[in-house]
């Protein structure tokens, strides 16, 4: 759990926003180097990778180039740490992210259409589908550039709220990752709510990772703008985290790949 205090909020109706301020540097570093690091790096990579490459041989294609590329440990980018961090703090908050296990953590997350995070919040019949967008920004302007424009968080959340076929597509993605796991019941409950409401009963998370001073304007006006496009039973939760160390340092602070 990343210890924090409330910088502003919670405020808003359908679209809620709040700011979380982390002041304890040591605890932040420790969080990065343990919880976040586990999420970012994969200790079992080698064994799984060998199996993948052995299987590739059965396709009768050559594996030399692919092996060289995929075997290498890539440098992580600060935004990747930001995403992992967001996953972790939301997990702490009760969210569940099922696709964690079969993922190759060396491969940057980039491809989920319209959502960086896909999972659930709530328990039992209260479980709902959750989709998340994460932005990491050291931009001194408020709101930062990552919040606005076509590739900005607000536009993405807006699209997420409206493109219900995208959610359903993500539901298909979750399905095999929940079947025969302890998450199956949660998946079914969340899916039932989703299907019965024509894809509206969901929670959208917007997480902004900052290394600046808290400022409610990072979220407030954008949240109000978003409010006009979203209606109950959809909930949107925007959270800005104000973190005590510069974004540039985050990769180093995680401690790097396990040897």
């Amino acid at each position: 759990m990343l210890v924090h205090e409330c910088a502003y909020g919670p405020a808003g109706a359908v679209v809620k926003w709040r700011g979380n301020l982390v002041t304890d540097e040591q605890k932040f570093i420790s969080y990065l180097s343990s919880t976040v690091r586990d999420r970012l790096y994969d200790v079992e990579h080698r064994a799984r990778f060998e199996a993948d490459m052995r299987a590739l041989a059965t396709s009768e294609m050559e594996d030399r180039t692919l092996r060289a590329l995929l075997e290498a440990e890539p440098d992580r980018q600060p935004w990747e740490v930001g995403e992992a961090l967001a996953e972790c703090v939301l997990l702490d908050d009760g969210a569940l992210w099922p696709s964690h296990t079969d993922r190759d953590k060396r491969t940057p997350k980039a491809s989920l259409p319209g959502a960086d995070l896909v999972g659930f919040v709530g328990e039992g019949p209260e479980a709902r589908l959750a989709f998340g967008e994460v932005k990491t920004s050291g931009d001194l302007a408020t709101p930062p550039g990552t919040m606005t424009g076509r590739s900005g968080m607000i536009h993405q959340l807006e699209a997420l709220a409206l493109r219900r076929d995208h959610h359903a597509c993500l539901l298909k993605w979750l399905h095999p990752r929940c079947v025969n796991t302890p998450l199956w019941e949660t998946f079914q409950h969340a899916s039932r709510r989703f299907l019965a409401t024509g894809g509206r009963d969901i929670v959208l998370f917007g997480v902004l990772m900052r290394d600046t001073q808290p400022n409610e304007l990072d979220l407030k006006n954008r949240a109000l703008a978003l409010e006009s496009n979203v209606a109950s039973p959809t909930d949107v939760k925007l959270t800005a985290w104000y973190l005590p160390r510069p974004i540039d340092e985050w990769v180093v602070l995680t401690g790097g790949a396990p040897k």
Partner: protein
Amino acid sequence: MTASWVIDALPEEALQVARQAAAQRLLQASLGTTERTQPDESGLRFMAEALELALLDLLQGAETLASTKGALASEGDRLRIATDLFHVLRALEPSGSHLDVARGYLRTGCVGVLADRGADVARLLRGLTVIDELPLQSLSWGERTAAAVLDVWLRMLRKDGWSDLTTVQERVVALRANQREFEAKYLERQGPETARQAAWELVLFYHLAKGAEILARYTTQGESDAGFDVREQLQGQFDRALIACGRAELVEWDAITRLLYHTSLQLVDNSIWTSTRAINPRVTEFVEKLVSRERAKPLFDLLPPQRRALREAGLRGGARAIVVNLPTSSGKTFIAQFRILQALNQFEREQGWVAYLAPTRALVNQVCARLRRDFALLEIQVERVSPALEIDSLEAGLLTDSSRDTQFQVLVTTPEKLDLMIRGGWEAKIGRPLTLVVVDEAHNLGTGDRGIKLELLLATINRECRNAQFLLLTPFIQNAGEVAAWLSPESNSIVELSVDWSPNDRVVGLAKPRQVPDARAFSIQLETLHTTHETLSVDDDLPICVGRPLDLTWNRVRRSNTDLAAATAQCLKSRGSVIVLCSRPDWAFSLAKRFQRPENYVALGADARLVQTYLQQEFGEDFELAGLLEYGVGVHHAGLSDEAKALMEWLFENGHLSVLAATTTIAQGVNFPVAAVVLAQHQFYDGARTAPMPAADFWNIAGRAGRADQAAAGIVALAASDPEKEAQLRDFVSTQVSTLNSTLLAMVASALQAGEKLELHSLFYRPEWSAFLQYLAHTYRQIGDPDRFAQQIDRILRGTFGFQRLRDTNREVAQLLVDSAQAYGTRLVGKPLSLVDSTGFSWETVSITLRRLSEERVREDVWEPSLFSGNSRALRSMMGILLEVPELRENLAAATGGRGADGDLLARIVSDWVNGVTLPDLAAKYFTITRTGEHLSKTDALTECCRNVFGKLSQTASWGLAALQAMTLGERFDRMPEATQQTIRNLPSRVFYGVASDDAISLRLLGVPRQAAQPLARSLHAEGTLPVSQRPLLEVRRDLASLGAKPWKDAMGNAGDVYWQVWSILEAVR
């Protein structure tokens, strides 16, 4: 509640809205309507995703035992969901880049296959350019590989002959060859953020490509990588492909990869190899031929009913009686072929043979050609015998051929002919056992005197032929199980459709005219009707067209159903070929003529030109049908020769005609899909009366509509020019499929109702009762003893389907029938009953006829070729006698064009017919003036002529003459030289075929058109040593096929070439 929790979670209304919207789009596309309603696109897309989730959930559940919900999911739910999803996806056209579009269609295709609509998927893909547009030469290896993967899988679904499957294997080989050159460069060009994902994507693609290669090999060869564990091989590749999706979170590929995995397993399941593995060597060999490169349309997959038939429904286990109760286009013929092979295999040591029964001469020819083609490479001899009710010397030779190399193994004929053979002891004469009887269009069991004859034939075979098994092919009857149990209570099976599968999408609706502001114009609206057959329907009327098609006016279409039907067909024909059904041949002609308008004019291609020339040769230069071809319209009815009808079917099937105006004769003649069927009338006309078309016939014809072009559903439109007609037609379409009842029930009921006492001998004048009396006489003769007959009659009657039903419904009447049959038996004592079997007449008719022959002094010396000289007194007398025979008189009297029982006239027509007088001359001479003195047009006279000569005279008069021969030939005949005996025996066949020599009969038996038979026989004789009639038929057929046009040209000059080509088409030589 369904087996799917996903479906249960969806609001029912939303699902209905989506179904309607999808149906509406499909129908609008099928009708070619330009103004399309725009359904809630995002709602449809959402529903597509939800349905796909439901489908994947059930598929995964079925695979994973742990998911109890899934394990319990019924096949039916899965099919229903897949079908709904298939419809929704077809309504949503994929958009985006070429790769996106291809992936969209791949998804649709997978779902289609999982919905058991693989044939629709193949057609959909054949109509699209999506495969051609893929960037297979892209400089980006990623794009190029994705394109190749989409290409190979789309080809696996399209399976357009061998070329698609060969291309799949070539593409995968090319990927391997090009990998080294392109892969490294492609990955180097990626930035750090995308390189790894791109690499995992390639891993995915490589596994998918390998999967396609495995499947392509299996589809073509029945094995892959020297193994039959194709499912395991596929599973290996797909498991790894899905892991790659997981590694890099390739969400967009994940679901399609899953669909593709289940689809690939379904394709393995559908493969002809899978269902036919390890049955017997003959079947394996047959499958190899069906799949082989040499075939124009190789058969890779089986339809669901075929798979079921092979796996579950007793075909493997060999139930003795099987009823295949399936609609049109469900692949019944293949099931029959498979069963035939099994029967031949079962009785190989005994050299058993199979009888394939088809109801009409045209179908006998069609089936024979198909079986010959498919079995040729297996060296299975398929022969046909003519429907003529006698065995002439040529047929006798064919039947008794004992050489293993040339003897027939499958005999195609009509039920009546087989009846004559069985009763004439031909199973013994053939010297090999009858092992299987295939009955095509077996619902005919329930209709008229032909129905009772067929029933009694099957009962006789069941009683007398030790090794006989049965396969009945029928569309839509309710009680298939009962019929199967009748034939074999202990070993029977039925093949039926599950309710969730139909061979194609179809809509049945009313075509209604509506007035539009332009006073003379009109619109035609289609009101879709709910039916019992899973056809599509939507709430709103759909516009078919507006304007003045065929220059017709509102005033005409609201008054005339024929005009309305013609206008509807004119609007629909741009979507594909259309059959317009009329109740009478002359109406079909007049309807066809409405299409003779400048906008329909087409320049004839070589094939149509050939048929046109042939028609002019046969029916005269000015034959109207020849002219109609130039407007893309043909006709098809009983008033054409068999050859002309077959040529119409051929032109229509090959796209040279866009409209075929036909009577119900088409129902059992067309076995290919058409875009639409339009009913101008829903009745049929049998020459004397009109009656509503039976439900089975309607659905048989309706079943032809469908799958004509890519996105289309088949349209069945019933023209309804006014509200009264609309109501009638709604009733007509809602008629449930009927139970197949034995005609015997109606016969008994009608006899008792008429106050008759069921004294059987007094009922002989009714043809249907004559058949029953003959059955009794035949069994009496077999038993040979009055007391034993009396004891056994109860058992014998129980062998009929009708008696069983009668006993179930009214035991008292059933007992009455037993008593009557016993009483009838006492009348048969000491009678020469072999005459009953050899004539096909009841004993009462035989006895009266013998007396009449004696009175008219017709003796054995009348049997000379001069009988047909044109002024033979004997022929006149005999025709007079035959006109009194109850079994024949109705047809014979009708054959004179309704002029009644005029023996002299009949004799003249018969003589002219035998002596080669052309059809136009026969028409001019005998059919121009009607009974009421009305003058017919040339076309109408020809129609009358053909209908009577082909439909009634040739068959009935030859049967009658053969019967009279049986009654008159005596000792003098036995003393004649064999050649003379043969000639005399063949005299009735001259009437059947309309030729005047034995040689010409041989050629007619080989399918040579009548006008060509005589001259060709001469020309062939000149070249060979023996006359044609003295050579084995097989040899003559081989010669005809190999010598080409030369002998025909020698015989007939330039026309010979036309006749040669027509013969090649009709006999499927070319």
